[in-house]
């Protein structure tokens, strides 16, 4: 991974150094774009015993409010060398698998468009698992306050170091976009980081007028221990509609593992609808996840990575200012006595070596969240 970062850096320097000094000085400002985004948020629940969190955060909100679940800040520099070559670096600080917000290089890639419709990228990129994989952390870019954890929380590999090829073609009034990618990364599961190699993925997107349909799959080899390998895969389909005042979106995903089938495998889906009344967009989301089990596979020796969970959410996005949106969201979460997916119990481990989120038992929890999402 270090090597790939240096390759990206070298490529950026090469692009910059290759320009004649004079035009460099003249067009410096035109070629660089600096931008950023962020979210300032607070969450509170009616549950004392467990923390409500997103993804694999080690702690979150309970009856005492928490600002770390949704708050983040990202900065991005884009360098457009010429009409077909550019470089993008994005740094993002948020609570990941540690309590503190750490700034990490989320993406650093060089992008080339050698022919119309053909795009090649190399470097670090978002893992294209979902309908909104690459802008899920940009609160301002989304209607909802946070992506439904029942679906977006299932992914254990947020980014990939490698390359991808995208080809876009218009067939009549339908825009078809196909992407193939390969690379390596790190998977984060059961509180540990695992090396992941031979990642291969592909997705196909169809867009016609206000409709977008997307299907994708990605898999990779996980090194669980020096002697044990696993194969991880993730498949998903999504559809979105956005026209005039109406917006709707739905996704269905599957997470699978070869050697730990009954620990890791899970399915998730959500459906969202919203309506714009000028600057106000009320919306509602129903989301569900449950473990996927198979009797032909060995039983899990240590519970399931995520349990059953269903959430009903109602929220409001208010485009209050030209650069910021204010959001409020209420979630009614029901984990049906399982460990769910949005909960963790901070403190001493119940089973040494594993996160407590695998062994807790949660019923219903009500959650209230508020954020200000901004771009600059």
């Amino acid at each position, binding site marked *: 991974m270090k090597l790939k970062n240096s390759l990206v850096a070298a490529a950026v320097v090469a692009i910059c150094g290759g320009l004649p000094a004079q035009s460099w000085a003249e067009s410096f400002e035109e070629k660089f*774009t600096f*931008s950023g*985004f962020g979210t300032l948020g607070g969450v509170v629940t009616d549950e004392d015993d467990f923390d409500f969190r997103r993804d694999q955060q080690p702690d979150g909100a309970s009856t005492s409010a928490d600002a770390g679940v949704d708050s983040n800040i*990202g900065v*991005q520099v*884009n360098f*457009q060398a010429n009409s077909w070559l550019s470089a*993008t670096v*994005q740094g993002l600080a948020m609570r990941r698998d540690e309590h503190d917000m750490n700034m990490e290089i989320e*993406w650093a*890639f060089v*992008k080339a*468009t050698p022919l*119309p419709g053909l795009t090649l*990228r190399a470097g670090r*990129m*978002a893992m294209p698992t979902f309908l*909104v994989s*690459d*802008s899920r952390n*940009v609160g*301002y*870019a989304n209607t909802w306050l946070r992506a439904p954890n029942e679906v977006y929380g299932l992914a254990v590999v947020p980014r990939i170091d490698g390359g991808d090829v995208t080809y876009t073609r218009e067939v009549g009034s339908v*825009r078809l976009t196909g992407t193939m990618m390969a690379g390596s990364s790190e998977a984060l599961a059961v509180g540990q980081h695992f090396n992941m190699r031979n990642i291969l993925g592909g997705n196909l997107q169809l*867009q016609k007028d206000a409709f977008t349909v997307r299907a994708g799959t990605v898999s990779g080899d996980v090194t669980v221990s020096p002697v044990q390998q696993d194969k991880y895969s993730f498949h998903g389909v999504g559809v979105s509609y956005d*026209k*005039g005042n109406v917006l709707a979106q739905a996704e269905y995903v599957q997470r699978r593992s070869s050697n730990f089938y009954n620990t890791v495998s899970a399915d998730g889906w959500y459906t969202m609808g919203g309506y*714009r009344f*000028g*600057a106000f967009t009320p919306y509602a989301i129903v989301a569900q996840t449950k473990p996927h089990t198979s009797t032909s596979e060995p039983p899990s020796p240590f519970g399931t990575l995520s349990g059953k969970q269903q959430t009903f959410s109602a929220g409001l996005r208010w*485009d209050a200012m*030209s*650069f910021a*949106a204010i959001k409020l969201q209420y979630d009614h979460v029901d984990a049906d006595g399982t460990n769910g997916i949005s909960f963790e119990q901070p403190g001493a481990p119940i089973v040494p070596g594993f996160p407590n989120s695998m062994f807790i038992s949660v019923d219903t929890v009500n959650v209230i969240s508020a954020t200000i999402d901004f*771009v600059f």
Partner: protein
Amino acid sequence: MKTIYRLVLAATLALSFGVAHADVVVVVSAKSPASKLTKEQVADIFLGRSTNMVPLDQAAGSPVRDEFYSKVAGQTAAQVKTTWAKLSFSGKGTPPKALGSDDEVKAQLAANPNAIAYMDKSKVDASVKTVLEP
């Protein structure tokens, strides 16, 4: 009766003012090979779905800009900004450059035959060519 006349007069004035305030047209350089474009084609170019031409924006918050996006794409300023936040923070593109005046727009169009812009119909002169009257 008098009140009703006043109301009708006020309404008529408001309506005529509303119609007269702007008539946005989409333009390219007079030297551009482009001739006629559809609303969908123009919306694709300005919302980052097509990279066939280089879009130029007017100043954020200007009435001509708001009218352009409303007529061509059916989107409010906030929706357009959300779309570009999605694209730019996923490295898929950068928003069109916003120019401060019609003169600047005309100068940029003259310098780049592949550029496309919009302006009030009354500002159109021989240096530009209208490709769409939405």
